[in-house]
C-alpha cells in the first residue's frame, strides 16, 4: 500500500490566498493542483512536504483559454481535457490537440493541469516541449506582484523551475502571428505512457520561405527543450524534404538522450531526427491547408 507521509492539508480560496499561505508556511509547503505527478512522488517518498495547499478551488479564477488578437493566454489551472477540447486552440495552435491526445489517459486528463505539468518540470513532460515550440512565457505571481519569464528561464533543469517558495505560476501566454501553424509528434511504448521521444514544432511561412520555426523536444536529455540552432538554420529558406532532414539532423546532434528502459540513446537520437522532420512537415502542410 502506497500512501504519502503525513502532511497538513490546506485549501486556498484565491490566488492571493494561496500565495499568502505559501508565504506563511514556508518552504515546507507545496501547491497541489491535479496531483497526478505530485501525489505519486509523495507516495514513493521521493517528495515530502509538511503542508499541501490545494488550489483546485482556483479553477474558476485560473481555468481559461483566452484568445486575443496578438496572443493566447491559458490559465494555470486549465485541465488537460480542456486544452484537448478547446476549439480555439485546435484552429490556431493544433499542436495542443496533437499533444493532449497522447498525454496520459482520459481520466488523468480530467485532473491534470497545464500549470502542474510545467511546474513538475519533468524532462519527459510533453507540454514543456509544446510551450517551448510556441514560444510561451510563464506568468509567476508572488507577494510583490507578477513577473514574466520565457520557457528557457522557467525551466531550470529536471524538477526545478523559476517559481520561488512563495510564488505560483498563474498563466502561460504565447504570441499569435499570421501565416503559421504547429504540430506534435510522439513515440511511446504503449497508450498513455511517457514519450520515448516527442517533438513539437511551430512554423511560419510567408512568400514561400520559412520566416520562423521553433522546435521543442521532450525526453532527450535533462536540459534539452528548445534547439535554437534549428530556428537559425530554417529561417529564410524554402520548405522542402531536404530542409526537414537537415533540421532533424541538427536535433539529433544537439540532444543528449540516455539509454534507459524506453530505448537506447542511439534509438532516441534517431527518433529526435525523425520526429523533428515529421512535425515540421506536418506544421508546414497545415499552413498551406494541405493537412488538418
Amino acid at each position, binding site marked *: *500500500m*502506497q*500512501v*504519502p*507521509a*503525513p*502532511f*497538513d*492539508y490546506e*485549501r486556498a480560496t484565491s490566488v492571493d490566498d494561496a500565495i499568502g499561505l505559501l508565504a506563511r508556511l514556508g518552504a515546507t509547503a507545496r501547491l*497541489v493542483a491535479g*496531483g*497526478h505527478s505530485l*501525489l*505519486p512522488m509523495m*507516495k514513493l517518498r521521493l517528495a515530502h512536504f509538511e503542508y*499541501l495547499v*490545494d488550489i*483546485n478551488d482556483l479553477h474558476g479564477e485560473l481555468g481559461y483559454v483566452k484568445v486575443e488578437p496578438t496572443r493566447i493566454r491559458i490559465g494555470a489551472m486549465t485541465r488537460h*481535457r480542456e486544452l484537448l477540447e478547446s476549439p480555439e486552440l485546435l484552429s490556431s495552435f493544433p499542436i495542443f490537440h496533437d499533444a493532449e491526445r497522447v498525454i*496520459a*489517459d*482520459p*481520466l*488523468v486528463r*480530467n*485532473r491534470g493541469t497545464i500549470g502542474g505539468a510545467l511546474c513538475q518540470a519533468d524532462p519527459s513532460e510533453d507540454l514543456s516541449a509544446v510551450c517551448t515550440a510556441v514560444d510561451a512565457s510563464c506568468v509567476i505571481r508572488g507577494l510583490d506582484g507578477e513577473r514574466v519569464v520565457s520557457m528557457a528561464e522557467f525551466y531550470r533543469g529536471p524538477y526545478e523551475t523559476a517559481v520561488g517558495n512563495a510564488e505560483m505560476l498563474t498563466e502561460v501566454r504565447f504570441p499569435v502571428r499570421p501565416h503559421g501553424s504547429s504540430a506534435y509528434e510522439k513515440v511511446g511504448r504503449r*497508450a*498513455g505512457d511517457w514519450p520515448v521521444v516527442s517533438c513539437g514544432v511551430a512554423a511560419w511561412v510567408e512568400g514561400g520561405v520559412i520566416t520562423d520555426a521553433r522546435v521543442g523536444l521532450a525526453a532527450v536529455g535533462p536540459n534539452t527543450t528548445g534547439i535554437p540552432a534549428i530556428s537559425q538554420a530554417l529561417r529564410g529558406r524554402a520548405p522542402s524534404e531536404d530542409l526537414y532532414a537537415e533540421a532533424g539532423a541538427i536535433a539529433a546532434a544537439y540532444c543528449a538522450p540516455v539509454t534507459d528502459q524506453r530505448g537506447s540513446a542511439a534509438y532516441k537520437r534517431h527518433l529526435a531526427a525523425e520526429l523533428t522532420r515529421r512535425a515540421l512537415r506536418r506544421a508546414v502542410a497545415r499552413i498551406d491547408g494541405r493537412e488538418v
Partner: protein
Amino acid sequence: MQVTMTVNGEQVTRDVEGRLLLVHFLRDHLALTGTHWGCDTSNCGACAVWLDGEPVKACTVLAAMAGGHEVRTVEGLEQFGELDSIQRGFMHCHGLQCGFCTPGMLMTARALLDRNPSPSEPEIREAISGQICRCTGYASIVRSVQWAAAEEAGTRTSADVGSPP
C-alpha cells in the same frame, strides 16, 4: 481533519488524515468496496469513480480534495433496484471475467455515454484507455458499451434483448 462530501447523493462527514486517498476513504471509511484498489500508481484505473460528474482515479485524489464535491461510485449506478443499462450491457455481452476492472470500466463507460450517446468503437476504446483489463482483451467490453448505447437509443430489437446469461 473533518471532510464532508456527497457520495452517491448522500452527504457524509468523517474525520480523516490529510494524506488519506479517496479510494481508501470510500472503501475503509464508507465500506463502499465496489470501488477497487489496484495498482496505487494511477495506471490501472480499477479505482475510477466520478468527481463532480467526471471519471477520475481515486488512488490519486486525496479524500480532502473531494471535500465539498460530489462523488459517484459503482454502488450509485443502480437506481430504484434497477441496474443501469451499462451494467446490463456488461452482463449481456460478457464484459467481464474476473470482475476486478469492472467497477472502473462501468463508471468510465457511463460517463462516455452521458456525453456521447452513440460512440464509435475508437471512441469507446479511447474512453477506457486509462484502464487495464487482463481478462477480456477489451473486445467484449467494447461490445458491452455498444449494447448499452443501442439499448438507450431504443434501437435494439426485442429479439436482441434476451435474458442475462
